[in-house]
């Protein structure tokens, strides 16, 4: 049976991981390669690298990083953060990334999704959506790291993106992100039901039960978290055992 996936997310700035404490057995938790190897050994099912570097050197350091990560780990990984063209994506995929996550650039230029899907296949194209529930009860798409509101709902955008060729949706709830109160079950569940591709839930993980809930109540295919893993509040082997005991199918 297809397993539910646990995905640590590593924020990268100038080639270094942003969050995190020092782990035992890791020389340098700021080194994305070392951290990636650590999570891979711990049983993470996939990794996501999100580049938040704002400098012009960004592209070069990211390609170098992808090369090093791909040489060292043997689980799939996704790279995202400011990727705006087929050429950008090609360079990262050629160097060993498995999937490319696109967000604002795809919203501003929806043709990008189809271009990437035609060029590399849908399985390489992850559409990341940052969404926030407003007073009117609707979940709107936000761009530029959550700074710019749009008038499109997350569900409409997800449907449109899947029709254009997105192979997976990475849904981050801004209402939940950073709260540690759990994932956004309702919107995850709604989108999961309405679209045909896998959905990764992100934002709000605080304890192990939250992971069980997003899989069992909202039918997420994968759950992504950063802080709880980087600060070792939740350890992946313990989490997976917990989920397995709760009858969630995970890779042990």
């Amino acid at each position, binding site marked *: 049976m297809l*397993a539910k996936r646990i995905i640590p997310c590593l924020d990268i700035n100038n080639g270094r991981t942003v969050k995190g404490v020092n782990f035992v057995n890791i020389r340098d938790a700021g080194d994305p390669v070392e951290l990636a190897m650590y999570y891979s050994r711990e049983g993470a099912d996939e990794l996501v690298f999100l580049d938040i570097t704002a400098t012009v050197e960004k592209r070069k350091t990211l390609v170098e990083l992808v090369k090093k990560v791909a040489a060292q780990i043997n689980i799939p990984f996704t790279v995202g953060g400011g990727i705006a063209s087929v050429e950008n994506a090609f360079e990262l995929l050629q160097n060993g990334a498995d999937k490319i996550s696109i967000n604002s650039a795809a919203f501003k230029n929806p043709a990008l999704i189809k271009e990437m899907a035609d060029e590399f*296949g849908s*399985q*390489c194209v992850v559409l990341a959506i940052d969404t926030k529930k407003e007073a009117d009860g609707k979940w709107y798409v936000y761009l530029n790291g959550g700074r710019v509101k749009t008038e499109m709902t997350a569900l409409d955008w997800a449907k449109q993106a899947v029709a254009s060729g997105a192979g997976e949706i990475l849904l981050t709830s801004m209402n939940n992100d950073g709260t540690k109160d759990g994932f956004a079950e309702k919107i995850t569940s709604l989108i999961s039901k309405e679209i*045909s*591709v*896998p*959905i990764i839930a992100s934002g709000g993980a605080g304890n192990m039960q939250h992971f069980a809930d997003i899989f069992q109540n909202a039918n997420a295919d994968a759950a992504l978290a950063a802080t709880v893993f980087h600060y070792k509040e939740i350890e992946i082997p313990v989490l997976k055992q917990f989920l397995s005991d709760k009858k969630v199918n995970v890779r042990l």
Partner: protein
Amino acid sequence: MKIAIVKYNAGNVQSVLYALQRLGIDAVVTGDAEEILKADKVIFPGVGHAGSAMEYLQKHHLDKLIISLKQPVLGICLGLQLMCNWSEEGNTKCLGIFNVNVKKFDNSILKNKRAHFKIPHMGWNNIYGLKSPLFGGVKENSFVYFVHSYYAEQSPETIATTDYIVPFSAAIHRDNFYGVQFHTEKSADTGIQIISNFLKLA
């Protein structure tokens, strides 16, 4: 040992190269007939579209070359699918090494059931019914990593099965030809075991 990875227009071979490097093996990525013919083992990877991949292979005469190979050949993902008879993807006639067809996953047959099967089949799933030296030291129901929307049907040549909507061929074997639908190069320790088993095949 000389390993050739077939170079064509489908997908990213870097991960396969890295996986071999971690095993201390150097491989050449090549579309050159001479080099492929003289290799001890040939890996035929691929991520992409069956139709455009077959067109490329035919144009570069790689189709007949692959069929004629006598050394162990391992097709991975699209590589496996191209080694079958026919693919529903682009209604494509393939190499015909394995006597099976490749179909698209169809979750409409399960509409009334509670489970919602997403397509592509993406993530870690179990392989069972393992019957080949390719799986030496690999436990039944081990998890491996899949990403695909098309699958090879079950056949007498199936050497590993996975269930997703329907049971399908996770791996196939005929003579010196082996195919795996999953990504050995991304399947953690199980994947490494399978690659090293392949490298040991005579």
